[in-house]
């Protein structure tokens, strides 16, 4: 039977509790958001004793369902002040599910200035004092824990989390001993505030996840995998080019943020494109198609080597490549890959940090295109926590305020990622209305705006249909985030009628339930409304669902402007 594992860092004790019936049919984001909404006072300080850090594996995590190993992390975000759910791949969700951990709730703050680690195994959670790893980067933590405990699952924070930087992330060990990240919203700072350096997940002797109807599960899992492989997005595009496939696409559409969101096209786009990334990786003997978790059949990740054939990074994403490459105008995959590695090791969100660097460039901290300057900033300032490093590490919004920049791409103080909302308006509605602050993954309208995924193109340059599109996607994305599915399952879900019924069949076969596809719609609505209610109680209003003023200025080459009125945006919440 699944249990709730609860850790009280104030009293330094742990308990294992039965799952309350209201949470029994939940997992992933639906569960972390339900727990945060119920147990965290919305007006609390996100780095204070009243905030809680919650981890929940997806409902299908730990099973043989492909691409089902996403782990949700939830809390009140110190960056945005809103509720936050950030999910990641890696091995942690699968181990937690096998250990029967429905959710791990960490509350309170210890007295004194000591640091701790948590060791989770089938008996429960043990709190251990930690000295040796304090100040160390994430890769050193992974290596040390492997020596101490063997190949366990690991959640860890780097120096950024220890220093409670608002862009600090929580890293997850992947199957190769590298990292994935709960990147957005500063959850690494929440973990740091609780003085937890790492959480080791020991799945030794843990049984397989029980299935109510194994035969039905296997049949549905096969249909599900087939739907993923048959869709051109998940079966061909992502495995071939990774997410960087979007560089040339978005550049062609005139929505590629360039020079801190000044232009919509970058003249050196080919230097940082998915096509060039693939060629470079193959030429150097790296791996252009690599999974972030066992059981991944999309394999959008990759292993990037330097010119001498030495490992640099994996999971080099479109967002990181675009924001450093075009928006900060670095235009050099080797520098970007090195920066990605440094950000992983320091434990800082590569979206928030990269956008913050673009704002800092506009503020005169360093010139646009200064790749070596960015590497120096990461190595010497971010890692050491100098005043400049802490400034950049506190996110794009704060950098803008400190350097008097008016072109600051944030919503609810979270950085806008690598799609300009003037030229791809559907994603602009998601940025504006998401309960998480600006987040492209909350309702990825880009695929419908540019490629017509889900039944035809919704013209990215027009307002028509964008609010409805974003609403539909944000409700549907709760399903993916709660089941533990990779975001990209959204593509076959939208286009292949066999996909969502197969997910429902797997859930029913796993838990012995009789859910219908409509149940997902209800889960999405309930979860979004609970998250929104938390934000309203924390002091947010409709006026926070707005894009920054500078998006009213035309964007070359299409001359597109952000022309939604507040009233039009507010229609989003009419459901």
């Amino acid at each position, binding site marked *: 039977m699944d249990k709730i594992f609860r850790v009280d860092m104030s009293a330094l004790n742990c308990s294992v509790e039965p799952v309350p019936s209201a949470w029994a049919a939940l997992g992933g984001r639906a569960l972390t958001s339900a727990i945060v909404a119920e147990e965290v006072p919305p007006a609390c300080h996100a780095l204070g004793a009243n905030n809680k850090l919650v981890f929940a594996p997806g409902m299908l995590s730990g099973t043989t369902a492909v691409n089902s190993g996403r782990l949700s992390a939830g809390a009140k975000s110190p960056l945005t002040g809103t509720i936050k759910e950030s999910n990641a791949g890696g091995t942690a969700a699968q181990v937690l599910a096998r250990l029967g951990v429905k959710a791990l709730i960490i509350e309170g703050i210890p007295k004194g200035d000591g640091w701790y680690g948590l060791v989770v195994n089938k008996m429960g959670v043990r709190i251990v004092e930690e000295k040796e790893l304090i100040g160390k980067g994430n890769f050193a933590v992974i290596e040390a824990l492997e020596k101490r405990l063997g190949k366990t699952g690991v959640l860890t924070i780097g120096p950024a989390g220890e220093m409670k930087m608002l862009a600090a992330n929580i890293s997850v060990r992947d199957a190769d001993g590298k990292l994935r990240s709960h990147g957005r919203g500063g959850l690494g700072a929440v973990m740091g505030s609780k003085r937890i350096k790492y959480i080791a997940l020991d799945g030794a002797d843990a049984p397989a996840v029980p299935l109510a109807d194994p035969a039905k599960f296997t049949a549905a899992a096969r249909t599900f995998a087939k739907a993923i492989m048959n869709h*051109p997005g998940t079966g061909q*595009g992502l495995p071939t080019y990774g997410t960087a496939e979007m560089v040339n696409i978005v550049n062609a559409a005139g929505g590629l943020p360039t020079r801190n969101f000044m232009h919509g096209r970058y003249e050196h786009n080919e230097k940082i494109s998915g096509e060039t990334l693939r060629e470079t990786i193959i030429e150097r003997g790296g791996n252009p198609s690599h999974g972030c978790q066992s059981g991944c059949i999309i394999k959008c990740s990759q292993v990037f080597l330097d010119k001498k054939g030495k490992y640099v990074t994996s999971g080099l994403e479109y967002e990181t490549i675009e924001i450093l490459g075009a928006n900060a105008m670095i235009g050099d995959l080797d520098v970007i890959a090195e920066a990605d590695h440094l950000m992983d090791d320091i434990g800082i969100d590569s979206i928030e940090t990269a956008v913050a660097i673009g704002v800092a460039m506009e503020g005169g901290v360093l010139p646009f295109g200064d790749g070596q300057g960015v590497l120096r900033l990461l190595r010497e300032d971010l890692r050491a926590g100098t005043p400049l490093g802490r400034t950049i590490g506190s996110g794009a919004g704060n950098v803008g305020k400190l350097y008097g920049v008016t072109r600051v791409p944030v919503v609810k103080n979270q950085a806008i990622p690598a799609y300009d909302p003037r030229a791809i308006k559907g994603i602009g509605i998601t940025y504006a209305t998401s309960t998480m602050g600006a987040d492209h993954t909350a309702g990825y309208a880009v695929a419908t705006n540019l490629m017509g995924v889900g039944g035809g193109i919704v013209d990215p340059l027009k307002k028509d249909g964008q609010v409805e599109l974003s609403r539909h996607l944000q409700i549907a994305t709760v399903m993916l985030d709660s089941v533990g599915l990779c975001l*990209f399952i959204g593509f076959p879900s939208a286009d292949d009628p066999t996909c969502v019924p197969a997910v429902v069949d797997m859930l029913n076969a796993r838990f012995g339930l009789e859910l219908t596809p409509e149940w997902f719609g209800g889960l999405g609505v309930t979860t979004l409304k609970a998250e929104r209610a938390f934000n309203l109680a924390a002091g947010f209003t409709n006026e926070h669902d707005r894009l920054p003023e500078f998006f009213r200025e035309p964007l070359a080459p299409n001359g597109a402007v952000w022309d939604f009125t507040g009233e039009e945006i507010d229609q989003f919440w009419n459901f």
Partner: protein
Amino acid sequence: MIEVTVNLLATFRTDRFKDELQQVCEGTTVGSLVSALGILEKEVGMALVNGRHAPMAHPLSHGDVLHLAPWIAGG
């Protein structure tokens, strides 16, 4: 004859080209140019003329820039 710049993205480049200035007859549409490249219309995920979505029946004009991409879903 009119001149059109054709940009191919992702797998459309394989055994073809990255970008090329092409001379085509007046009245050439996006669809007829796609066929001339040996690409099936149903394989096209995104066709942009001068940065804006265009249907297959859209007639090309002198100086147009065409981007063609296969079905790619996102990042």
